[in-house]
């Protein structure tokens, strides 16, 4: 029994050497810290996403998008040995906005302890503590007078986690804009002193071939390439019809969209 175990370990060790040796870093120095970069690559039904293009949802409705923004925060990274590194919260609130130029947004998490990381967890949205924090803690992506404009509800103080807007011939005519608009603004962090609906969702990403992100000091950042397919927001189990639900803001129905979009993130590959 014991023998077998040693045998097993030595194979593991051996194979890890071979794996390492085919990679670019042959240094095994696990001291210090390095950087993890995450690229959010927007897709629609598997195609490259662009504003103004026609995409057909599961209900057979054609949709064109004009806005696609969301918050990601509260990152924690799981090493190959199962230990977890939690990125200090205040460094990691990011607002990802699809831009008209189509250039993907990349974010950087620095000062990550060197090591091999196999799993990447984050929150879609902004947690309750931050959502009820004083004004001076709302800088950068969280400044309601700045970057967070349009991503903050003044009357229900909290951030809009995911904001998607566009037009569809299936949507009813919106008298305000005289167009067939749909608007999905999903938020609600669960409340602080009195509870509310909680649409915070956590995503956990792994590489399908069990590749790991090698974080090393004095080395360029490890890079996660993440696909984010907007059409997953409208897919089963809660197929969303633009005709039936053209506008969803704070409402009990919003949980359906949150349950859908938590699956829209897929880790396509890792560069080391």
């Amino acid at each position, binding site marked *: 029994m014991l023998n077998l175990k040693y045998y097993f370990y030595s194979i593991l060790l051996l194979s890890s050497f071979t794996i390492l040796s085919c990679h670019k870093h042959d240094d095994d120095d696990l001291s210090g810290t390095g950087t993890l970069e995450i690229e959010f690559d927007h897709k629609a039904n598997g195609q490259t996403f662009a504003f103004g293009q026609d995409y057909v949802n599961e209900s057979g409705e054609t949709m064109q998008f004009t806005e696609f923004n969301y918050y990601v925060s509260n990152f924690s990274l799981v090493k190959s040995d199962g230990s977890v590194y939690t990125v200090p919260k205040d460094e990691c609130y990011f607002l990802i906005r699809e831009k008209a130029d189509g250039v993907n947004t990349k974010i950087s998490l620095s000062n990550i302890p060197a090591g091999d990381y196999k799993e990447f967890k984050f929150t879609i949205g902004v947690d309750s503590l931050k*959502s009820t924090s004083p004004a001076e803690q709302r800088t950068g992506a969280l400044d309601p*007078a700045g970057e967070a404009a349009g991503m903050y509800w003044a009357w229900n103080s909290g951030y809009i986690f995911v904001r998607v807007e566009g037009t569809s011939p299936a949507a009813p005519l919106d008298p305000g804009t005289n167009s067939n608009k749909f608007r999905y603004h999903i938020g609600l962090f669960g409340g602080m002193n009195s509870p509310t609906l909680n649409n915070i969702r956590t995503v956990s990403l792994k590489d399908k071939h069990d590749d790991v992100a090698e974080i090393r000091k004095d080395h360029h950042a490890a890079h996660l390439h993440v696909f984010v397919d907007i059409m997953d927001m409208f897919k089963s189990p809660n197929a969303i019809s633009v005709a039936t639900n053209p506008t969803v803001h704070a409402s009990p129905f919003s949980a359906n969209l949150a349950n859908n979009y938590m699956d829209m993130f897929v880790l396509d590959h890792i560069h080391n």
Partner: protein
Amino acid sequence: MQLSVNFLGLMVFCSILWTSCTVDDKDLWTGIVKPAHFPEPFFKVEVTKEGFELGRKLFYDPILSRDQTISCGGCHNQSSAFTHHGHDLSHGIDDLIGMRNSLPIQNLIWHNSFFWDGGVGHIDLISINPIENPVEMDLRFGQAIAKLNTDQNYREQFKSVYGSDSITGSLFLKSMTQFMSMLVSADSPYDQYLSGNSNALSAEEIEGMKIFESKCASCHSGVLQSDFAFRNNGLQEEPFIDDGRFLISQFEQDKGKFKVPSLRNVEYTYPYMHNGNKNSLEDVLHHYRFGIKKSSTLDSLLIKNGKLGIELTDEESSKIIQFLKTLSDPKFIRDKRFSEQ
């Protein structure tokens, strides 16, 4: 270290110098003083004299509205304990009528949420709501801050208070918090009574207080007369015209519930209730005795043995009203520090 001590000393010296030549001694800056008979505040707020004064200027300045027609003070009048005098539903920009009755601004640091539905969860975030509300001031928050930044006087004043070259959303909100946190009302006859002056209330008022404590204080509890919970006190039938807390929480069981209001200065804050449809304290007492409407979320405290309402005699109701008037703090509504300068 040496430097900072020196600096501090210099600051203290300067401020002594400054106060001594501008204001008389009784006005020495004290910041927020917690009344001894109040609980610990929910929000701890640091207030400087300069921050408070800047907040006051902003509170009374219509620059925060789209067309410069309305200020916070326009809907929150000091003479009515900072509620909208005489309006059931507040009038805002373009004379649009809001959905709800204005609330007084007083003792805010003891609240744990703001507005009738508790939609705002931090004292700093209050102002963004009326500024962005299309029927109140109708500006995007960022636009309001940009407007302030084009005003040379404000730029200089923010610089002298915070040392910052530009006016940020956060510094603006901090100024508003400093002004509003200072609006502490704690010097009514009721407060004097609680602080040991047994002559501050008459025998009838004390009786009224006892009846209030047994009939009303399960919701209007403590020295602020509120448990700050969300409850339905029987104003609406279903379907509700205003879903109240449900609009925030999205929980079915919160439909028709509103934050239990503090009753301080209630004599000055008429009309009453979220929809402003009770004009006098007599109307309010009549409501609790005979007007409770049944609905699925009606508070169970308002049904006794299958009977709706709170059982009270005419005499008891009038004693309660006498007691409620002892919550009036005339000094608060006349305090010059809180008025437009």
